[in-house]
């Protein structure tokens, strides 16, 4: 009886731990979104959201302006780059619940100091 209760409790605790890990979100989004998962999860809670989730609040033209670089490096702008222009989907480089490196780092050694992995 006692052993059974302990095992059950441990099981529930580990499930709770998994739950907590699964909903780690960025500090800057906690303030705005809080615990409203559906704010972003437009394809259902268990699926990746579409990019429309990001574009509800962020404007790609504004972002391209904010991350613009000097003439020599202008195409290294992550939001308006040489290969994809402004069409690179947000989630190709940004992940909410996990770490993620910029797509560019697959081939280039550019520095993106403001990118939050």
């Amino acid at each position, binding site marked *: 009886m006692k052993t059974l209760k302990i095992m059950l409790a441990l099981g529930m605790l580990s499930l709770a731990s998994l739950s907590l890990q699964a909903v780690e979100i960025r500090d800057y989004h906690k303030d705005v979104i809080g615990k409203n998962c559906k704010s972003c999860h437009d394809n259902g809670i268990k699926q*990746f959201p579409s990019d429309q989730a990001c574009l509800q609040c962020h404007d790609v033209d504004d972002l391209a302006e904010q991350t613009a670089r000097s003439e020599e490096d202008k195409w290294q702008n992550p939001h308006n780059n040489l290969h*994809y222009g402004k069409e690179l989907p947000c989630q190709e480089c940004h992940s909410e619940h996990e770490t993620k490196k910029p797509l560019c780092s697959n081939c280039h*050694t550019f520095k993106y100091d403001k990118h939050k992995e």
Partner: protein
Amino acid sequence: MRDRRSFLKFGAGVAIGSVAATIPAMASTNDCGPAIKWDETHDIIIIGSGFGGLSSAINIKRSGIKSVLVLEKMLQFGGNSAINGGWFAVPGNPIQVSEGVKDSPALLVQDQIAAGRGMASEEHLTAIANRALDAFNLCVDSGVRFREGFNMLVGGHSIARAVRTVDGTGGEITRNLYKVAKSEGVDLRNQQYVEDFIMENNKVIGLKVRRNFRYPDLTTGEIVFIKANKGVVVATGGFAMNKQLCKLLDPSIDPTMDCTNAKGATGEVTLTAMSHGALAVHMNMIQTGHWGSPDEGGFGWSNALLSITWHEGMVVSVLNGKRFMNERADRKYCSDRILANRYEDNSPAYPIAFFNYNDHPDDDRVVRALRDEMAWKMDSVEQMATKFNIDPKTLQESIDLHNKHVAERKDPLFDRVMDTAKHLAPPFVVSRIWPKVHYCMGGLKTDLGCRVIGSKNLEPMKNLYAVGEATGGVHGTTRLSSCACLEGLAGGFIVAETINSDNKV
């Protein structure tokens, strides 16, 4: 209060639930055509959004076919085409004409056949080369910018005929063609993984697609069935990024070699077509790009930088400080010789490639390479010898010998064409080189109209077409530089004509 039996049942239930959650729904792979509930219907479905897919989409749409859908499995459009070096072989291009350079599709094909070492298809190459100017004009008309007055002789070609996009990448083409396709009513969708073809005997009638797919997780998204009334075009590129498949096909593919490709170049649609009877050829002909750098990932800048070395500079082995190849030859010749540079434990002894810094101090290829540390500025032969552990005396002798050959305009060692070679003197721009897996000459066999040949009867399969790197049997053992862009774009013109011909009443 739970007894032991009910606890075990509870636990088992959780386990079963967990297992079920990790396995995608087990749909039948023999979905029958007539019984299918179609979620959508289109005239033409194009799989892939690189040069081949985009050119096909625009040309098919312009030919009068109403409903054209493009499916891209990745988040971003463009495939390998978006990240390539932007080189494009155009015999008869405007710069050639203005400079009085005589060239023709037939002369291009001659070079390609020589490179194909007896395994190329002259008919296919000719069909493609004949559309070079159409393809070039499609780019220009779509807003693609090429370097002004730029017409280059590149590896394996006998005539300067390669133009290049203004910023040296194929993204200039894919970005612009994407916009044109979209504005002209093509439906372009990302995150669409094609799981299977729906067949009616030997005819493709539609696709089973995982919509909202998130590469590489095959449990994401949901399954839909999309009908294709007039055909499916496979424009999915090659499979160089699929290491398992490459190793099965060519055991000599060296594990020390990185791959230049975008992550999605894994070839599943080609394998799916094969499983339905499509004939594949030359699958073991997997090309390495000899211009890879071990100091950066994937494609990177090295191709651009090394185009200077091939023309002006030289390559030496770090094992003995000597040249070992004709730097102007094609990629198979060069890759084989570079890969032969090994230490005693068989680890790569990366050769070094260098040219005069003072000839190109402000060139963006040089500036970027030095800043990103995939090349180094070496102010003396001694400094270079020290950094790369070469005997300085031997290295100096090799440079002196090269300079003698430059003065004489003749290379008796490797018969390199010396018309652009420079007298070399420090400071140098030096980079290490090692080939990378780059292009698959193998793929689906097509007829001259891009119809996929079936393996059962060696006749075209109905409503199945393929263009670009997804096809096989075109280039033989070596695909020449600047010809992949041509192949993909030209394929779009050819397949549009074929589809219209096949759908005449």
